[in-house]
């Protein structure tokens, strides 16, 4: 029993930390995130060069075949650096869906450019009314001849603005909330019949609502079996949630660190405010919130594939949501007035943390999912 990183994981961690330290200061981040796409294509190319884009992609898919711990290591460091990138939508969602669902030819034609940093992807799953219910899908893929015709609207598609290709979850049968009858299609994001409305999220990154108007798709654009998309969605969303939690933990640790530094430097009443017992205890609470979250992250990583997996994942997303809010709020409060300016990095970290809480179910949502496992209704 040990919680050490493997040699490869340690190298990945070191290389990510080095990249941020040497090439990705907060100033660079702020410039990157303000670009029209919400990230910098050159930075993305560097990701590709460093091999990061292949981490969770299977060896069969031409990737590194990394496990949950590998992704965790990478994402935690990206979190610490507040790196603005479409890693989640392009690699963790789009890439993984293609990796596990696409027929061989399609898979290679998409994953090769993706790993090379030349293709941007996105996963269009939720709709205006969906909230956190992954099966709440009204967008319809109606059989027509050999193929299908797509009609409907997807909302809040991360990286939907820059994506070259999309995976779209559409209903081929069943009713609005049914898990059965959902099918996944890879489509060209710039095809006729695809209408995008892009906007920013509070972390500066871009999302889009995407409307499909009589968009024709063929059967070979289908991922997995028709009507069976939900199981693919669950699988990929679960690993993405774990990745997001690792990113969040990186952010929480960073916030805890910079708050300690700030309070040591900030003097009021003739003393550094870090000398006030009330603030000390609150920083201890922040520290404990991080450590407990880390323990649960490790548990979740260790539980992948076991009967503890779902329970761990819900507990994790719940705790990251709740503790993340606490850490973010305290970080701002302990920075005083400086905490509410956009000039310091603290607010930016908090905003990314808040966005993560809204992805794939917030704290309240996952708390209830956890309760449903232990105390089934």
């Amino acid at each position, binding site marked *: 029993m040990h919680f050490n990183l493997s040699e490869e994981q340690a190298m990945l961690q070191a290389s990510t930390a080095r990249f941020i330290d040497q090439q990705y200061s907060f100033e660079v981040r702020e410039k990157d995130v303000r670009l029209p796409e919400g990230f910098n294509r050159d930075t993305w190319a560097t990701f590709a060069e460093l091999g990061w884009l292949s981490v969770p992609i299977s060896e069969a898919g031409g990737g590194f075949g990394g496990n949950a711990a590998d992704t965790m290591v990478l994402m935690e460091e990206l979190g610490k650096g507040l790196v603005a990138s479409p890693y989640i939508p392009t690699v963790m969602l789009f890439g993984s869906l293609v990796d596990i669902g696409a027929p061989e030819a399609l898979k290679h034609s998409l994953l090769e450019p993706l790993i090379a940093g030349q293709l941007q992807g996105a996963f269009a799953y939720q709709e205006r009314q969906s909230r956190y219910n992954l099966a709440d899908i009204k967008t319809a893929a109606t059989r027509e001849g050999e193929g299908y015709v797509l009609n409907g609207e997807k909302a809040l598609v991360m990286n939907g603005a820059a994506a070259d290709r999309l995976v779209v979850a559409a209903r081929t049968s069943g009713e609005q909330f049914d898990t059965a009858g959902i099918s996944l299609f890879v489509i060209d994001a710039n095809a006729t019949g695809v209408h995008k*409305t892009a*906007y920013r999220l509070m972390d500066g990154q871009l999302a889009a609502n995407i409307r499909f108007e009589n968009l024709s798709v063929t059967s070979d654009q289908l991922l997995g079996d028709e009507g069976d998309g939900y199981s693919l969605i669950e699988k990929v969303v679960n690993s993405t949630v774990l990745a997001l939690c690792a990113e969040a933990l990186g952010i929480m640790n960073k916030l805890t660190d910079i708050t300690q530094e700030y309070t040591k430097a900030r003097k009021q009443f003739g003393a550094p405010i870090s000398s006030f017992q009330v603030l000390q205890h609150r920083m201890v609470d922040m520290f404990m919130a991080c450590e407990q979250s880390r323990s649960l992250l490790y548990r979740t990583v260790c539980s992948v594939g076991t009967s503890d997996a779902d329970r761990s994942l819900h507990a994790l997303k719940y705790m990251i949501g709740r503790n993340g809010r606490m850490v973010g709020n305290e970080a701002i409060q302990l920075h005083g007035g400086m905490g509410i300016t956009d000039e310091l990095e603290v607010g930016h970290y908090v905003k990314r943390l808040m966005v993560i809480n809204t992805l794939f179910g917030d704290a309240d949502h996952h708390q209830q999912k956890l309760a449903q496992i232990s105390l089934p209704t």
Partner: protein
Amino acid sequence: MDISFSDEEVAFRDQVRDFFKQAPVAEVTALIAQPDTYKEGTVRWQKHLFAQGWIAPTWPIEHGGAGWTPTQMHIFETERVAASAPDVLPFGLKMVGPVIYTYGTEQQKQRFLPRILASDDWWCQGYSEPGAGSDLASLKTRAELDGDHYVVNGSKTWTTGAHHADWIFCLVRTSTEGRPQQGISFLLIDMTSPGVTVRPIPTINGEHSLNEVFFDNVRVPVENRIGDENKGWTYAKSLLAHERTVIARVADSKRRLEKLRQYALKETEGGQVMAQDPVFRSRFSDIEAELMALEYTGLRVLAAQASGQGPGAESSLLKIKGTEVQQAIHELTIDLAGPYGGIINDSLTSGDIGHEFGDQARKDYMYGRATTIYGGSNEIQKNITAKHVLGL
């Protein structure tokens, strides 16, 4: 133990309610909501109240106020919030105005008060400095006497609306002897004076309301000093307790909570309205109970004021609980918005994006973090309460 209103108070309430019904609330609210027309809308609304004689209801009648009792003021505020009508800006009317009519010279009163009442001057407050936040008395901006002028050097921060302001009232250091509180003077400074610079501070909600104000050899006539030199702390302090009761914003929280309730009856997940979600219900009722209590805490303070006491130390309790409730409402509102709690509408409409209140929930949440920091952070309020109320 009686919370009913007298007949006169009931009549007054009806009059106020009627006034708001007829007032151009929607029009000015729309103007205030846009950065470009914010100042125009604010001034127009304040002039409307001025015309009614209600712009400074608690000022003494001799200075142009309405001389209302605390209960009347409470009725007015309740009706104002019920009508979703904007508040007035506090800096002139609630802060420097009372200081001027209490401690100012006859000449100062005549010069400044009418323009404050008519909203002809826009005021801002120069208290905090980069190095003096919670420890306000350690402020360093200095004013040195040079003939019949002070020469002011230094800077002030977190100055709301400085970019709109004609005047700023400042605490400045005129002496470094004795306790830090003893060498502070209260100056009124014309924002058009040479040497005054305003730098916007972008805030985490993406909007601009705060500024830093720099003073570089700014010459201020001695006649713009309020009261005695080195006694400014006393004049400023009298405002602080009052400011805390204002920050509690109980009536405003009631309106927000009701709005949240309405949203929860429409927002759905899996076909069920969120008002039926167990965790939502717990969090909502928790806030509701705290706010129901706070409303009466406010009334208790008011009743004490009406009988000639306070607002004293209990204003810290109002400030702490009031801001905690505000933040709890912000948190539950942004969570109710779900995935839409993280979006920025910008020029898109809610219809384009697909959600009614997510964008506003985000702004409120982010800027709302400031409520536990400004007006004396909640930590400072607890220090005050421990010392002055509990005697620890």
